[in-house]
């Protein structure tokens, strides 16, 4: 089965129509996921819809009090260099530093990475821990859903046939909030994750009580996941080492990792504990 045609729509509306019209159509932005999947025969599109020519989908806009809006076609490289992200949403930048390598970051888009919906996505855990939402556009119009709900299962997002992801929205973060992302892998930076851990924690003005915490984990479940039980152990309480230990144990227990040759379930749980503890400790330091 070979690719029949290559489209370059110039609007979101045109894209949705093409998606609705053609069977076996795949969107491509950076191409760093699709081409690999085609080489592996995991994807066999008949039509390629290249959305890079759609204007106004590549932006990083911050409004005080409103939060951050990122266009789906924004490259990972652009996120890495963005001043506002480095200053106000540093966990996003931390994730970009773990993302593949420089050449891939130059073309890979945030939208593309999220739509690929791989459980090991580097960008997802940090955004989930920030409480991000995504805006989806289709033939019927637009809607906004929490990022956590965007991931249905491994390699499947919530997008319907005619839909595309157009924007990622990240709420304003409060004053005493810090976010830390750790990726643990076999070889280090750029390697596929064994586990990814993102912690966004808000402390009180005395820096003793955890007012709020979100913990998001990568590659320990079919989708990036929140560790709700773990969060509830710390949320509203005074932080000490014993409580952190209890919290990370709960996080490990909540995981739902699949048996894989890359790492055993047991090891992934251990690493969740190790890195969640490191992340929390660093965030409150």
């Amino acid at each position: 089965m070979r690719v029949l045609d290559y489209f370059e729509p110039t609007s979101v509306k045109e894209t949705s129509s093409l998606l609705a019209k053609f069977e076996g159509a795949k969107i491509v932005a950076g191409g760093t996921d699709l081409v690999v999947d085609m080489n592996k025969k995991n994807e066999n599109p008949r039509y390629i819809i290249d959305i890079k020519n759609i204007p106004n989908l590549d932006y990083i806009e911050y409004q005080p009090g409103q939060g951050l809006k990122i266009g789906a076609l924004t490259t990972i490289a652009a996120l890495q260099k963005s001043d506002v992200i480095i200053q106000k949403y540093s966990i996003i930048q931390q994730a970009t530093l773990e993302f593949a390598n420089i050449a891939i970051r130059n073309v890979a888009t945030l939208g593309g990475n999220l739509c690929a919906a791989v459980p090991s996505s580097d960008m997802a855990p940090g955004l989930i821990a920030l409480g991000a939402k995504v805006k989806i556009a289709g033939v019927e119009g637009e809607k906004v859903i929490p990022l956590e709900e965007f991931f249905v299962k491994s390699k499947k997002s919530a997008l319907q046939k005619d839909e595309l992801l157009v924007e990622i929205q990240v709420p304003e973060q409060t004053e005493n909030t810090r976010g830390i992302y750790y990726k643990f892998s076999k070889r280090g930076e750029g390697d596929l994750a064994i586990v990814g851990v993102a912690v966004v924690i808000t402390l009180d003005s005395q820096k003793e009580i955890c007012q709020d915490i979100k913990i998001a984990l990568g590659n320990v479940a079919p989708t990036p996941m929140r560790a709700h039980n773990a969060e509830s152990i710390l949320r509203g309480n005074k932080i000490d080492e014993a409580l952190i230990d209890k919290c990370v144990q709960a996080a490990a227990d909540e995981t739902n990792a699949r048996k894989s040759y890359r790492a055993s379930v047991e090891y992934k749980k251990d690493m969740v504990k190790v890195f969640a503890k490191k992340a929390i400790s660093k965030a409150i330091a």
Partner: protein
Amino acid sequence: MKQKIVLNLNGEDYEVFVLPDDTLLDAIRDRAGLTGCKHGCDDGKCGACTVIMDGKAVRSCLMFAISAQGKKITTIEGLSKGTESLHPIQKAFIEHGAIQCGFCTPGMIMFVKSYLDDNPQPTEDEIRNALAGNICRCTGYVKIIDAVKAAAEEMRQ
């Protein structure tokens, strides 16, 4: 069905015929005849296909040729043509023994060029981390890093 596209490679326009899912790598090599960039892998991990597009290093094996129209692309052949003298990075690679089998070399050099253009004074650690996107099996990276340091210094002058 092949379609005609125009690729701007090293400052020249090349008219080539490509299939819808031909990659930029295939187009540059098989259609335009510039065989410097290489096929090293199937998943964009090795970097042997790296070219510079609008000033940024990209994996030409992960890009569709059609989408590369209208962009300024530089391949290894564009760094020095014919009897022109070599780019400092090429010279440094040669002089420091950073080339053994040479298959990773064009992609490596193009990546290093775009990296040093953006980061003229990198530390050794920064160089190592940046180079982690290009695989070399022969050199153990040691002399490549020596070459990059030397090239950076020369390019600063």
